[in-house]
């Protein structure tokens, strides 16, 4: 027992062992209930005396709230009560979303419902509580709120100009955060380069469009002084702390329960004022209050993201060696930084990630993060990655064009060598081990480049314009406290798992990471089955309850497998050792001579079955009198895991996109898409592959269709799914996924994150493919989304 387990000793990625589940495509246990409509989302939860909230939202981008007249509302059948900002503020404190390590960052206090001013169109202003959601909406319609419109600051380009409307005068200006990373001598590199090319890139304002809208059901029990919140969230323990702090309660008085979650993508890891208001109202009313955002509310009040304008330059020598990147990023984040992760992180990520796949010496990147009167932005799937990848890979392709070099060749000459690790990037990111060249080689085995180029040339003759584009990328996963904790946020980077064996020999794992469809519970089941030595069917997984699961961060930033999975593996191995100690006493054998395979205690050497776990459980739980008095027999173990050597476990990959652009209509048809990614140890290829595909589609959607469009008064024009277009099955191509596995040595499991790789690289690969198609026509697009109108404008057709 004294030998520390190694990946080899526990048989990771070996499919020839019994109960060897890591690396196998085991179906998820959650899916049968999903396909039969038997899941439990927050809106499916009904409680006695439950009431419903609806919100009056600001119709103006910026307005003074001169008065709230609720007399007519109180006459509406079913309406019980109306809450203004002042009402809620009596029991709920405001918050300020800054992080100490983001030097100079500033934001203003945000109340659950504003006291004096509304600062974006869609901000919740007044809550109406009624017996049904319909009655609450009737009540909202009957409200008479006097808004005095104020000039709005909408354009991020003018947010810092003299005369700009100050969103929060007490802050002095609209600058929330700025940071420059600098390494080497960019000016000299540009002055002496063989070629310097530059371009301006725009990534459109997006939102997540989780199919299940934001949902909360808060229940305050006056007798116990406890708040129980059923919440569609990625981070139950974080929200427990937030509700406690804002409502002036002890954390132990708050329980967050999160059953099935209908998609998250980062949207559901933030603190939303309407949700905090609902919890506060539940506390005041002493009864359950439910709020389910409708789709209009989702568009105006879910966080937006990716509203960036980047001016970039790349310098290369005559051989195509990258000498440096010089990038200026500007982003508008709405009127408040979003609590508690802040809205400066996306811009900060752009600074951290630009140029990421490449070995070059000179770097300068500045992000400028400004306030404006639009919906607040914050972290959304692949935070900053698609932005940094678009500017980096867009510039690399432009450099290749200027040099007359093949896009594959320029990448091969500049990607960080696979033997170069550990490696620190010019932006200061530390890479433990990446595989850019192996990933490129693997991609080229999958993409029939010669055939595609021949087809491309043939089609050109017929006036059909096809293009092939590539994008290498890095992805930040398994974040340590360096992401949020060091900045003062109560966001856990560690995570825990408790694994126990019940009398029948079945195993239960309770984990602090959460399930929103990624397959968290599926991989935890596999890992624990593997670690203990039981069939997967004998393992049940419990997540999403702060009262029963070990404290943890939840699922975001691609940490579920890497952090939560490792905690589960370690606790499973500890439980196995404990079981074998008991078995040794029962069988009069040395525990080291025994093993557990498919739920049976066996002789390690011969594999001979000695005892089923159900029999061991029967003795331990019902006939403990027959065991030696001093024998420890706690068949439950808890382990927590946190990364220690690297702030982040970076992953890498490369994508290729093959498209057709109709020069007459500007329409882009996606023909085929490839992605090779390296997320370290793959626990379940079936899950990883479709998660990567989903990520690709989310990236392609953003690059082709999705855009939160505002008018010049700050009204959001895209508030239905008929206006904000999302990718549907008919437009999406078949996608081919390949893997390279470079396990992290920080953990036994070796898993890194996989959920954001697809989104990180897809927009850049698509942009480069479109521009490859347009190149002979003398056109180029760099502003997302690549709509038909923009492509036709680039072609000079309109």
């Amino acid at each position, binding site marked *: 027992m004294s030998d520390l387990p190694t990946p080899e000793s526990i048989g990771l990625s070996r499919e020839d062992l019994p109960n060897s589940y890591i690396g196998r495509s085991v179906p998820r246990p959650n899916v049968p209930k999903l396909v039969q409509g038997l899941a439990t989302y927050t809106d499916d939860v009904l409680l006695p005396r439950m009431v419903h909230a609806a919100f009056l939202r600001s119709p103006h981008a910026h307005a003074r709230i001169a008065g709230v007249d609720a007399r007519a509302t109180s006459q509406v059948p079913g309406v019980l009560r109306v809450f203004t900002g002042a009402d809620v503020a009596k029991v709920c404190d405001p918050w300020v979303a800054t992080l100490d390590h983001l030097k100079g960052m500033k934001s203003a206090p945000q109340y659950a419902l504003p006291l004096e001013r509304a600062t974006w169109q869609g901000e919740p202003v007044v809550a109406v509580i009624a017996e049904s959601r319909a009655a609450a909406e009737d009540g909202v319609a009957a409200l008479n709120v006097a808004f005095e419109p104020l000039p709005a600051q909408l354009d991020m380009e003018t947010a810092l100009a003299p005369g700009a409307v100050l969103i929060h005068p007490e802050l002095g200006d609209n600058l929330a955060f700025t940071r420059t990373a600098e390494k080497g001598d960019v000016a000299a590199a540009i002055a002496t380069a063989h070629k310097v090319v530059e371009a301006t890139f725009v990534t459109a304002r997006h939102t997540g469009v*989780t199919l299940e809208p934001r949902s909360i059901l808060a229940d305050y029990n006056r007798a116990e002084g406890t708040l129980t919140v059923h919440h569609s969230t990625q981070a139950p323990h974080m929200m427990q702390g937030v509700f406690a702090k804002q409502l002036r309660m002890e954390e132990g008085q708050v329980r967050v329960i999160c059953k099935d979650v209908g998609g998250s993508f980062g949207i559901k890891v933030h603190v939303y004022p309407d949700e905090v208001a609902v919890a506060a109202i539940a506390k005041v009313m002493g009864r359950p209050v439910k709020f389910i955002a409708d789709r209009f509310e989702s568009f105006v009040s879910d966080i937006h993201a990716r509203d960036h304008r980047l001016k970039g330059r790349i310098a290369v020598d005559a051989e195509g060696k990258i000498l440096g990147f010089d990038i200026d990023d500007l982003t508008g984040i709405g009127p408040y930084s979003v609590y508690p992760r802040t809205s400066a992180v996306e811009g900060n990520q752009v600074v951290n990630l630009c140029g990421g796949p490449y070995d070059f010496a000179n770097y300068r990147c500045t992000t400028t993060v400004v306030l404006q009167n639009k919906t607040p932005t914050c972290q959304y799937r692949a935070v900053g990655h698609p932005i940094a990848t678009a500017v980096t890979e867009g510039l690399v392709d432009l450099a290749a064009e200027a040099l007359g070099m093949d896009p594959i060749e320029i990448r091969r000459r500049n990607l960080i060598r696979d033997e170069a690790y550990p490696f620190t990037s010019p932006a200061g990111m530390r890479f433990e081990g990446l595989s850019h060249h192996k990933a490129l080689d693997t991609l080229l085995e999958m993409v029939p480049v010669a055939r595609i180029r021949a087809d491309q040339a043939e089609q050109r003759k017929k006036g059909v314009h096809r293009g092939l584009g590539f994008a290498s990328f890095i992805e930040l996963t398994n974040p340590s406290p360096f992401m949020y904790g060091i900045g003062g946020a109560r966001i856990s980077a560690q995570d825990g798992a408790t694994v126990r064996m019940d009398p029948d020999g079945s195993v239960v794992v309770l984990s602090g990471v959460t399930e929103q469809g990624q397959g968290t519970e599926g991989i935890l089941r596999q890992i624990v089955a593997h670690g203990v030595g039981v069939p997967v069917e004998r393992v049940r997984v419990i997540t999403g309850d702060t009262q029963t699961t070990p404290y943890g961060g939840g699922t975001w930033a691609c940490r579920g497998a890497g952090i939560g999975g490792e905690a589960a593996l370690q606790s499973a191995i500890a439980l196995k050792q404990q079981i074998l100690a008991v078995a040794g006493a029962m069988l009069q054998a040395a525990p080291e001579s025994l093993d557990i395979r498919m739920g049976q205690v066996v002789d390690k050497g011969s594999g001979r079955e000695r005892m089923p776990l159900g029999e061991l459980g029967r003795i331990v739980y019902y006939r403990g009198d027959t065991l030696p008095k001093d024998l420890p027999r706690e068949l439950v173990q808890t382990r927590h895991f946190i990364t220690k050597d690297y702030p982040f476990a970076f992953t890498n990959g490369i994508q290729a996109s093959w498209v057709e652009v109709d020069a007459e209509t500007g329409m882009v048809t996606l023909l085929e898409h490839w992605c090779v990614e390296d997320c370290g140890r793959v626990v379940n290829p079936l899950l990883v592959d479709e998660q990567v595909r989903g990520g690709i589609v989310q990236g392609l959607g953003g690059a082709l269709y999705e855009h939160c469009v505002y008018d010049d008064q700050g009204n959001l024009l895209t508030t239905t799914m008929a206006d904000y277009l999302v990718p549907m099955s008919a437009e999406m191509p078949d996608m081919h996924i390949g893997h390279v596995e470079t396990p992290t040595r920080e953990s036994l499991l070796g898993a890194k994150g996989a959920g954001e790789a697809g989104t990180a690289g897809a927009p850049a690969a698509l942009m480069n493919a479109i521009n490859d198609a347009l190149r002979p026509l003398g056109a180029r697009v760099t502003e997302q989304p690549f709509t038909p109108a923009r492509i036709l404008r680039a072609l000079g057709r309109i």
Partner: protein
Amino acid sequence: MSMRVEITLTVNGERVTRSVEPRRHLVDFLRLDLGLTGSHAGCEHGVCGACTVRVDGEIVRGCLVLAASLDGADVTTIEGLSDSGEVADLQAAFVARNAAQCGFCTPGMVMAAADILRHHPEADRAAIREHLSGNYCRCTGYQAIVDAVAQTLEARR
């Protein structure tokens, strides 16, 4: 909104009578009045397909049909479809292919896919994609869903 309409209809083979507000749409009726929470309200303007149910043999958007108009109708939801065993093979294929992630779209997706099995047994991948193009899934890349439907069609041939 005090006016109400009495309707009697068949839902998943069971006769139900309820008094509903004229504004009550079908998916709210199913979820709130009958406790059939398998159908989901995703957008309530007929785009996302999460509320897809079968009415008199044809799939409809539950959010675009008023319950008051359904006196005498025959409604099948994901619960009834599952209980009947009509698409047990399709559901097994969804499980095997991991064609559901968060699952919020899945009941509507299964209802729409069941419609392919009934009416378009010869559908190829492109036809499957076209038929499912009114059902939004944010999690999967659609490919696993198309795979599951194609595999089921193939197995039934």
